[in-house]
Protein backbone atom coordinates (compact mmCIF):
# COMPACT_ATOMS: atom_id res chain seq x y z
CA UNK A 1 0.00 0.00 0.00
CA UNK A 2 2.81 2.42 0.87
CA UNK A 3 4.55 1.51 -2.36
CA UNK A 4 1.32 2.27 -4.23
CA UNK A 5 0.98 5.60 -2.48
CA UNK A 6 4.53 6.54 -3.42
CA UNK A 7 3.93 5.45 -6.99
CA UNK A 8 0.74 7.50 -7.24
CA UNK A 9 2.42 10.54 -5.72
CA UNK A 10 5.34 10.29 -8.14
CA UNK A 11 2.98 9.83 -11.08
CA UNK A 12 0.93 12.91 -10.18
CA UNK A 13 3.99 15.07 -9.58
CA UNK A 14 5.58 14.06 -12.86
CA UNK A 15 2.32 14.60 -14.74
CA UNK A 16 1.85 18.02 -13.17
CA UNK A 17 5.44 18.99 -13.93
CA UNK A 18 5.06 17.81 -17.52
CA UNK A 19 1.87 19.80 -17.96
CA UNK A 20 3.43 22.97 -16.50
CA UNK A 21 6.88 22.65 -18.10
CA UNK A 22 8.08 25.74 -19.92
CA UNK A 23 10.16 23.95 -22.50
CA UNK A 24 8.71 21.34 -24.80
CA UNK A 25 11.77 19.11 -24.39
CA UNK A 26 11.40 19.04 -20.61
CA UNK A 27 7.70 18.32 -20.93
CA UNK A 28 8.32 15.35 -23.22
CA UNK A 29 11.11 13.96 -21.01
CA UNK A 30 8.77 14.11 -18.03
CA UNK A 31 6.01 12.59 -20.13
CA UNK A 32 8.18 9.55 -20.85
CA UNK A 33 8.86 9.20 -17.13
CA UNK A 34 5.09 9.43 -16.60
CA UNK A 35 4.60 6.58 -19.05
CA UNK A 36 7.09 4.40 -17.22
CA UNK A 37 5.44 5.09 -13.86
CA UNK A 38 2.11 4.28 -15.46
CA UNK A 39 3.61 0.96 -16.56
CA UNK A 40 4.39 0.17 -12.94
CA UNK A 41 0.85 1.12 -12.01
CA UNK A 42 -0.50 -1.39 -14.55
CA UNK A 43 1.62 -4.11 -12.98
CA UNK A 44 0.23 -3.18 -9.57
CA UNK A 45 -3.27 -3.40 -11.07
CA UNK A 46 -2.56 -6.97 -12.21
CA UNK A 47 -2.77 -5.96 -15.86
CA UNK A 48 0.56 -7.19 -17.19
CA UNK A 49 -0.62 -7.17 -20.83
CA UNK A 50 -1.55 -3.52 -20.49
CA UNK A 51 1.73 -2.75 -18.72
CA UNK A 52 3.72 -4.16 -21.62
CA UNK A 53 1.66 -2.18 -24.13
CA UNK A 54 1.99 0.99 -22.10
CA UNK A 55 5.77 0.61 -21.88
CA UNK A 56 6.13 -0.14 -25.57
CA UNK A 57 3.56 2.22 -27.06
CA UNK A 58 2.45 4.69 -24.39
CA UNK A 59 5.94 5.58 -23.18
CA UNK A 60 8.21 4.20 -25.91
CA UNK A 61 6.77 4.98 -29.33
CA UNK A 62 4.82 8.04 -28.16
CA UNK A 63 7.97 9.34 -26.51
CA UNK A 64 10.07 8.88 -29.65
CA UNK A 65 7.33 10.51 -31.70
CA UNK A 66 7.06 13.56 -29.45
CA UNK A 67 10.82 13.93 -29.02
CA UNK A 68 11.30 13.82 -32.77
CA UNK A 69 8.59 16.47 -33.16
CA UNK A 70 10.26 18.71 -30.58
CA UNK A 71 13.56 18.42 -32.43
CA UNK A 72 12.02 19.23 -35.79
CA UNK A 73 10.02 22.15 -34.45
CA UNK A 74 13.14 23.57 -32.78
CA UNK A 75 14.82 24.00 -36.15
CA UNK A 76 11.75 25.60 -37.69
CA UNK A 77 10.22 28.97 -37.05
CA UNK A 78 7.82 28.39 -34.20
CA UNK A 79 4.23 29.14 -35.12
CA UNK A 80 2.84 32.28 -33.56
CA UNK A 81 1.37 31.04 -30.31
CA UNK A 82 -2.30 31.39 -29.77
CA UNK A 83 -3.34 33.92 -27.17
CA UNK A 84 -3.30 32.09 -23.81
CA UNK A 85 -6.38 32.53 -21.63
CA UNK A 86 -6.19 35.39 -19.16
CA UNK A 87 -5.71 34.83 -15.42
CA UNK A 88 -9.41 34.96 -14.60
CA UNK A 89 -10.21 32.49 -17.35
CA UNK A 90 -7.33 30.25 -16.28
CA UNK A 91 -8.65 30.22 -12.74
CA UNK A 92 -12.10 29.37 -14.01
CA UNK A 93 -10.76 26.51 -16.11
CA UNK A 94 -8.70 25.28 -13.15
CA UNK A 95 -11.78 25.28 -10.93
CA UNK A 96 -13.77 23.43 -13.57
CA UNK A 97 -11.08 20.79 -14.02
CA UNK A 98 -10.67 20.41 -10.27
CA UNK A 99 -14.43 19.98 -9.96
CA UNK A 100 -14.44 17.31 -12.65
CA UNK A 101 -11.52 15.50 -11.00
CA UNK A 102 -13.26 15.68 -7.62
CA UNK A 103 -16.54 14.41 -9.04
CA UNK A 104 -14.71 11.61 -10.81
CA UNK A 105 -12.87 10.71 -7.61
CA UNK A 106 -16.13 10.63 -5.67
CA UNK A 107 -17.69 8.44 -8.33
CA UNK A 108 -14.74 6.03 -8.18
CA UNK A 109 -15.46 5.66 -4.46
CA UNK A 110 -19.15 5.17 -5.16
CA UNK A 111 -18.79 2.36 -7.70
CA UNK A 112 -20.93 -0.61 -6.71
CA UNK A 113 -19.58 -3.29 -4.40
CA UNK A 114 -19.09 -6.13 -5.29
CA UNK A 115 -18.00 -4.86 -8.66
CA UNK A 116 -19.84 -6.26 -11.70
CA UNK A 117 -17.39 -8.31 -13.70
CA UNK A 118 -17.15 -10.49 -16.76
CA UNK A 119 -14.22 -12.46 -15.34
CA UNK A 120 -16.39 -15.51 -14.67
CA UNK A 121 -17.94 -15.77 -18.16
CA UNK A 122 -14.50 -15.24 -19.70
CA UNK A 123 -13.10 -18.05 -17.57
CA UNK A 124 -16.03 -20.30 -18.50
CA UNK A 125 -15.70 -19.71 -22.24
CA UNK A 126 -11.92 -19.48 -22.55
CA UNK A 127 -11.50 -23.25 -23.08
CA UNK A 128 -13.57 -22.97 -26.26
CA UNK A 129 -10.82 -20.80 -27.75
CA UNK A 130 -7.91 -23.07 -26.67
CA UNK A 131 -6.14 -19.98 -25.38
CA UNK A 132 -4.56 -19.59 -21.95
CA UNK A 133 -4.36 -15.80 -21.80
CA UNK A 134 -7.80 -14.35 -21.05
CA UNK A 135 -6.91 -10.95 -22.51
CA UNK A 136 -5.92 -12.56 -25.80
CA UNK A 137 -9.17 -14.51 -25.66
CA UNK A 138 -11.15 -11.28 -25.36
CA UNK A 139 -9.11 -9.55 -28.07
CA UNK A 140 -9.18 -12.38 -30.58
CA UNK A 141 -12.48 -14.12 -29.95
CA UNK A 142 -15.09 -12.54 -27.69
CA UNK A 143 -14.45 -9.00 -28.86
CA UNK A 144 -12.48 -9.77 -32.01
CA UNK A 145 -14.48 -7.15 -33.91
CA UNK A 146 -12.87 -4.35 -31.89
CA UNK A 147 -9.41 -5.68 -32.64
CA UNK A 148 -10.23 -5.96 -36.34
CA UNK A 149 -11.59 -2.43 -36.50
CA UNK A 150 -8.63 -1.16 -34.55
CA UNK A 151 -6.21 -2.62 -37.08
CA UNK A 152 -8.20 -0.77 -39.73
CA UNK A 153 -7.94 2.42 -37.67
CA UNK A 154 -4.14 2.09 -37.51
CA UNK A 155 -4.00 1.60 -41.27
CA UNK A 156 -6.27 4.60 -41.79
CA UNK A 157 -4.00 6.67 -39.56
CA UNK A 158 -1.10 5.90 -41.91
CA UNK A 159 -3.22 7.06 -44.85
CA UNK A 160 -4.01 10.25 -42.93
CA UNK A 161 -0.35 10.94 -42.15
CA UNK A 162 0.57 10.39 -45.78
CA UNK A 163 -2.32 12.59 -46.89
CA UNK A 164 -0.54 15.52 -45.23
CA UNK A 165 2.34 15.30 -47.72
CA UNK A 166 3.26 18.80 -48.96
CA UNK A 167 2.99 19.58 -52.66
CA UNK A 168 5.67 17.86 -54.68
CA UNK A 169 6.50 15.25 -52.08
CA UNK A 170 3.99 12.60 -53.09
CA UNK A 171 5.36 9.11 -53.51
CA UNK A 172 8.64 10.00 -51.82
CA UNK A 173 10.45 8.70 -48.77
CA UNK A 174 8.49 9.25 -45.56
CA UNK A 175 9.85 11.26 -42.65
CA UNK A 176 12.56 13.82 -42.27
CA UNK A 177 16.04 12.86 -43.44
CA UNK A 178 18.10 11.49 -40.55
CA UNK A 179 21.77 12.42 -40.24
CA UNK A 180 23.92 9.35 -40.95
CA UNK A 181 25.92 8.18 -37.93
CA UNK A 182 28.57 5.73 -39.05
CA UNK A 183 29.87 5.19 -35.55
CA UNK A 184 29.00 6.43 -32.13
CA UNK A 185 26.65 5.08 -29.51
CA UNK A 186 23.43 5.27 -31.52
CA UNK A 187 24.96 3.44 -34.46
CA UNK A 188 26.21 0.76 -32.10
CA UNK A 189 22.77 0.36 -30.57
CA UNK A 190 21.15 0.35 -34.00
CA UNK A 191 23.41 -2.50 -35.10
CA UNK A 192 23.50 -4.53 -31.91
CA UNK A 193 19.92 -4.39 -30.73
CA UNK A 194 17.69 -5.37 -33.70
CA UNK A 195 18.63 -9.08 -33.86
CA UNK A 196 17.96 -9.43 -30.14
CA UNK A 197 14.84 -7.28 -30.33
CA UNK A 198 13.37 -9.37 -33.14
CA UNK A 199 13.89 -12.54 -31.13
CA UNK A 200 12.25 -10.95 -28.09
CA UNK A 201 9.32 -9.72 -30.17
CA UNK A 202 8.76 -13.16 -31.66
CA UNK A 203 8.90 -14.65 -28.19
CA UNK A 204 6.34 -12.18 -26.85
CA UNK A 205 4.08 -12.85 -29.82
CA UNK A 206 4.36 -16.61 -29.42
CA UNK A 207 3.70 -16.71 -25.66
CA UNK A 208 0.84 -14.21 -26.05
CA UNK A 209 -1.65 -16.99 -26.59
CA UNK A 210 -1.12 -18.34 -23.08
CA UNK A 211 0.80 -15.71 -21.10
CA UNK A 212 0.95 -11.93 -21.06
CA UNK A 213 2.07 -10.65 -24.44
CA UNK A 214 0.69 -10.65 -27.94
CA UNK A 215 0.62 -8.87 -31.24
CA UNK A 216 0.50 -5.26 -30.13
CA UNK A 217 3.44 -5.57 -27.77
CA UNK A 218 5.41 -7.58 -30.31
CA UNK A 219 4.54 -5.15 -33.10
CA UNK A 220 5.67 -2.17 -31.03
CA UNK A 221 9.04 -3.84 -30.35
CA UNK A 222 9.46 -4.75 -34.01
CA UNK A 223 8.61 -1.18 -34.97
CA UNK A 224 11.29 0.08 -32.59
CA UNK A 225 13.80 -2.29 -34.15
CA UNK A 226 13.15 -0.62 -37.49
CA UNK A 227 13.09 2.90 -36.08
CA UNK A 228 16.45 2.54 -34.38
CA UNK A 229 18.54 2.02 -37.55
CA UNK A 230 16.37 4.65 -39.23
CA UNK A 231 17.22 7.23 -36.57
CA UNK A 232 20.89 6.33 -36.87
CA UNK A 233 20.67 7.02 -40.58
CA UNK A 234 21.62 3.43 -41.40
CA UNK A 235 18.47 2.56 -43.34
CA UNK A 236 16.16 4.65 -45.49
CA UNK A 237 12.45 3.87 -45.40
CA UNK A 238 10.97 2.72 -48.71
CA UNK A 239 9.10 5.40 -50.67
CA UNK A 240 5.40 5.45 -49.91
CA UNK A 241 4.64 4.69 -53.52
CA UNK A 242 6.18 1.22 -53.04
CA UNK A 243 3.47 -1.34 -53.69
CA UNK A 244 4.96 -3.91 -51.34
CA UNK A 245 4.99 -1.42 -48.47
CA UNK A 246 1.31 -0.71 -48.98
CA UNK A 247 0.49 -4.40 -49.18
CA UNK A 248 2.43 -5.05 -45.98
CA UNK A 249 0.36 -2.64 -43.94
CA UNK A 250 -2.91 -3.76 -45.54
CA UNK A 251 -2.47 -7.51 -45.55
CA UNK A 252 -3.11 -7.97 -41.82
CA UNK A 253 -6.60 -6.43 -41.78
CA UNK A 254 -7.40 -8.10 -45.13
CA UNK A 255 -6.59 -11.57 -43.77
CA UNK A 256 -8.46 -10.85 -40.56
CA UNK A 257 -11.59 -9.82 -42.47
CA UNK A 258 -11.24 -12.75 -44.85
CA UNK A 259 -11.09 -15.24 -41.97
CA UNK A 260 -13.99 -13.45 -40.33
CA UNK A 261 -16.08 -13.72 -43.49
CA UNK A 262 -15.11 -17.37 -43.86
CA UNK A 263 -16.48 -17.86 -40.36
CA UNK A 264 -19.71 -16.21 -41.47
CA UNK A 265 -20.02 -18.64 -44.38
CA UNK A 266 -18.94 -21.83 -42.58
CA UNK A 267 -20.02 -21.24 -39.01
CA UNK A 268 -22.86 -18.83 -39.60
CA UNK A 269 -21.38 -15.88 -37.72
CA UNK A 270 -18.76 -13.31 -38.63
CA UNK A 271 -15.49 -14.01 -36.77
CA UNK A 272 -16.71 -17.36 -35.48
CA UNK A 273 -13.98 -20.01 -35.60
CA UNK A 274 -14.81 -23.65 -36.39
CA UNK A 275 -14.44 -25.90 -33.32
CA UNK A 276 -10.83 -27.04 -32.91
CA UNK A 277 -9.63 -24.43 -35.40
CA UNK A 278 -9.77 -21.47 -33.07
CA UNK A 279 -6.18 -21.47 -31.90
CA UNK A 280 -4.44 -22.09 -35.24
CA UNK A 281 -6.58 -19.47 -36.96
CA UNK A 282 -5.96 -16.97 -34.17
CA UNK A 283 -2.23 -17.58 -34.41
CA UNK A 284 -2.27 -17.08 -38.19
CA UNK A 285 -4.14 -13.81 -37.77
CA UNK A 286 -1.82 -12.66 -35.00
CA UNK A 287 1.34 -13.38 -37.00
CA UNK A 288 0.21 -11.55 -40.11
CA UNK A 289 -1.35 -8.74 -38.12
CA UNK A 290 1.87 -8.28 -36.15
CA UNK A 291 3.80 -7.67 -39.35
CA UNK A 292 1.23 -5.17 -40.63
CA UNK A 293 0.87 -3.32 -37.34
CA UNK A 294 4.62 -3.19 -36.75
CA UNK A 295 5.21 -1.53 -40.12
CA UNK A 296 2.22 0.78 -39.65
CA UNK A 297 3.32 1.87 -36.17
CA UNK A 298 6.83 2.59 -37.44
CA UNK A 299 5.41 4.57 -40.37
CA UNK A 300 3.29 6.59 -37.96
CA UNK A 301 6.42 7.57 -36.04
CA UNK A 302 8.46 8.23 -39.19
CA UNK A 303 5.79 10.60 -40.41
CA UNK A 304 4.83 12.52 -43.50
CA UNK A 305 7.00 12.50 -46.64
CA UNK A 306 9.12 15.58 -47.02
CA UNK A 307 9.61 17.52 -50.25
CA UNK A 308 13.30 17.88 -49.53
CA UNK A 309 13.82 14.15 -49.60
CA UNK A 310 12.24 13.17 -52.85
CA UNK A 311 14.43 10.91 -54.89
Amino acid at each position, binding site marked *: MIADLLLVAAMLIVALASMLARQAFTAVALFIAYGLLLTLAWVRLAAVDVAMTEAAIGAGLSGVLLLGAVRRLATQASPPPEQPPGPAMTLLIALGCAALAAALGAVVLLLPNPAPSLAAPVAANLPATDLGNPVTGVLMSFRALDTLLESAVVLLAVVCVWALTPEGGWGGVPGAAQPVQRDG*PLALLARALPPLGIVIAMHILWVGADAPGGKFQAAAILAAMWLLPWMAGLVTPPPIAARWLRWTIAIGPVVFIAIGLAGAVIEGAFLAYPPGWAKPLILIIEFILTASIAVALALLVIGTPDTAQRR
Partner: protein
Amino acid sequence: MTLLVDAFTILAVLAGLVFFIAGTTGLLRFPDTASRLHALTKADHLGLGLIVLGLLPRAAGIDGALRLLAIWGLVLLSSAAVGPMIARLARLRRPGE
Protein backbone atom coordinates in the same frame (compact mmCIF):
# COMPACT_ATOMS: atom_id res chain seq x y z
CA MET B 1 20.32 -23.93 2.50
CA THR B 2 17.20 -21.96 1.67
CA LEU B 3 17.94 -19.71 4.62
CA LEU B 4 21.37 -19.00 3.19
CA VAL B 5 19.94 -18.27 -0.26
CA ASP B 6 17.32 -15.99 1.24
CA ALA B 7 19.92 -14.11 3.22
CA PHE B 8 22.03 -13.70 0.10
CA THR B 9 19.07 -12.39 -1.89
CA ILE B 10 18.05 -9.93 0.80
CA LEU B 11 21.58 -8.65 1.26
CA ALA B 12 22.25 -8.26 -2.44
CA VAL B 13 18.94 -6.54 -3.17
CA LEU B 14 19.37 -4.21 -0.22
CA ALA B 15 22.87 -3.32 -1.35
CA GLY B 16 21.48 -2.71 -4.83
CA LEU B 17 18.83 -0.41 -3.39
CA VAL B 18 21.48 1.59 -1.54
CA PHE B 19 23.24 2.23 -4.85
CA PHE B 20 19.97 3.20 -6.49
CA ILE B 21 19.23 5.68 -3.73
CA ALA B 22 22.74 7.08 -4.02
CA GLY B 23 22.32 7.40 -7.78
CA THR B 24 18.97 9.13 -7.43
CA THR B 25 20.36 11.51 -4.85
CA GLY B 26 23.12 12.34 -7.27
CA LEU B 27 20.60 12.94 -10.03
CA LEU B 28 18.71 15.37 -7.86
CA ARG B 29 21.61 17.12 -6.11
CA PHE B 30 24.50 17.33 -8.57
CA PRO B 31 24.89 20.68 -10.29
CA ASP B 32 25.29 19.89 -14.01
CA THR B 33 24.22 17.35 -16.57
CA ALA B 34 27.53 15.54 -16.89
CA SER B 35 27.93 14.71 -13.21
CA ARG B 36 24.24 13.84 -12.94
CA LEU B 37 24.66 11.35 -15.77
CA HIS B 38 27.74 10.02 -14.08
CA ALA B 39 25.92 9.41 -10.82
CA LEU B 40 22.92 7.91 -12.52
CA THR B 41 24.63 5.47 -14.86
CA LYS B 42 27.45 4.25 -12.63
CA ALA B 43 25.49 3.82 -9.43
CA ASP B 44 22.34 2.47 -11.05
CA HIS B 45 24.13 -0.13 -13.12
CA LEU B 46 25.87 -1.43 -10.06
CA GLY B 47 22.59 -1.36 -8.17
CA LEU B 48 20.73 -3.19 -10.90
CA GLY B 49 23.58 -5.69 -11.19
CA LEU B 50 23.38 -6.44 -7.48
CA ILE B 51 19.61 -6.87 -7.62
CA VAL B 52 19.92 -9.22 -10.59
CA LEU B 53 22.63 -11.13 -8.77
CA GLY B 54 20.46 -11.41 -5.70
CA LEU B 55 17.52 -12.68 -7.69
CA LEU B 56 19.53 -15.18 -9.75
CA PRO B 57 19.26 -18.08 -7.27
CA ARG B 58 15.50 -17.60 -7.17
CA ALA B 59 15.05 -17.62 -10.95
CA ALA B 60 12.92 -20.38 -12.45
CA GLY B 61 15.48 -22.53 -14.23
CA ILE B 62 18.23 -21.62 -16.62
CA ASP B 63 16.10 -19.56 -19.02
CA GLY B 64 14.75 -17.48 -16.17
CA ALA B 65 18.30 -16.70 -15.06
CA LEU B 66 19.27 -15.93 -18.64
CA ARG B 67 16.37 -13.52 -18.91
CA LEU B 68 17.47 -11.70 -15.77
CA LEU B 69 20.99 -11.38 -17.12
CA ALA B 70 19.61 -10.23 -20.46
CA ILE B 71 17.72 -7.45 -18.70
CA TRP B 72 20.93 -6.26 -17.08
CA GLY B 73 22.81 -6.46 -20.34
CA LEU B 74 20.11 -4.56 -22.24
CA VAL B 75 20.06 -1.79 -19.67
CA LEU B 76 23.84 -1.52 -19.85
CA LEU B 77 23.74 -1.41 -23.62
CA SER B 78 20.97 1.15 -23.85
CA SER B 79 22.39 3.54 -21.30
CA ALA B 80 25.81 3.20 -22.82
CA ALA B 81 24.19 4.49 -25.99
CA VAL B 82 21.87 7.07 -24.46
CA GLY B 83 24.33 8.53 -21.91
CA PRO B 84 26.75 10.00 -24.46
CA MET B 85 23.81 11.27 -26.53
CA ILE B 86 22.41 13.21 -23.60
CA ALA B 87 25.86 14.49 -22.74
CA ARG B 88 26.40 15.70 -26.29
CA LEU B 89 23.00 17.37 -26.32
CA ALA B 90 23.75 19.11 -23.03
CA ARG B 91 27.09 20.36 -24.36
CA LEU B 92 25.44 21.65 -27.53
CA ARG B 93 22.86 23.55 -25.55
CA ARG B 94 25.22 25.27 -23.15
CA PRO B 95 28.58 25.60 -24.83
CA GLY B 96 29.93 27.64 -21.94
CA GLU B 97 29.76 24.88 -19.35
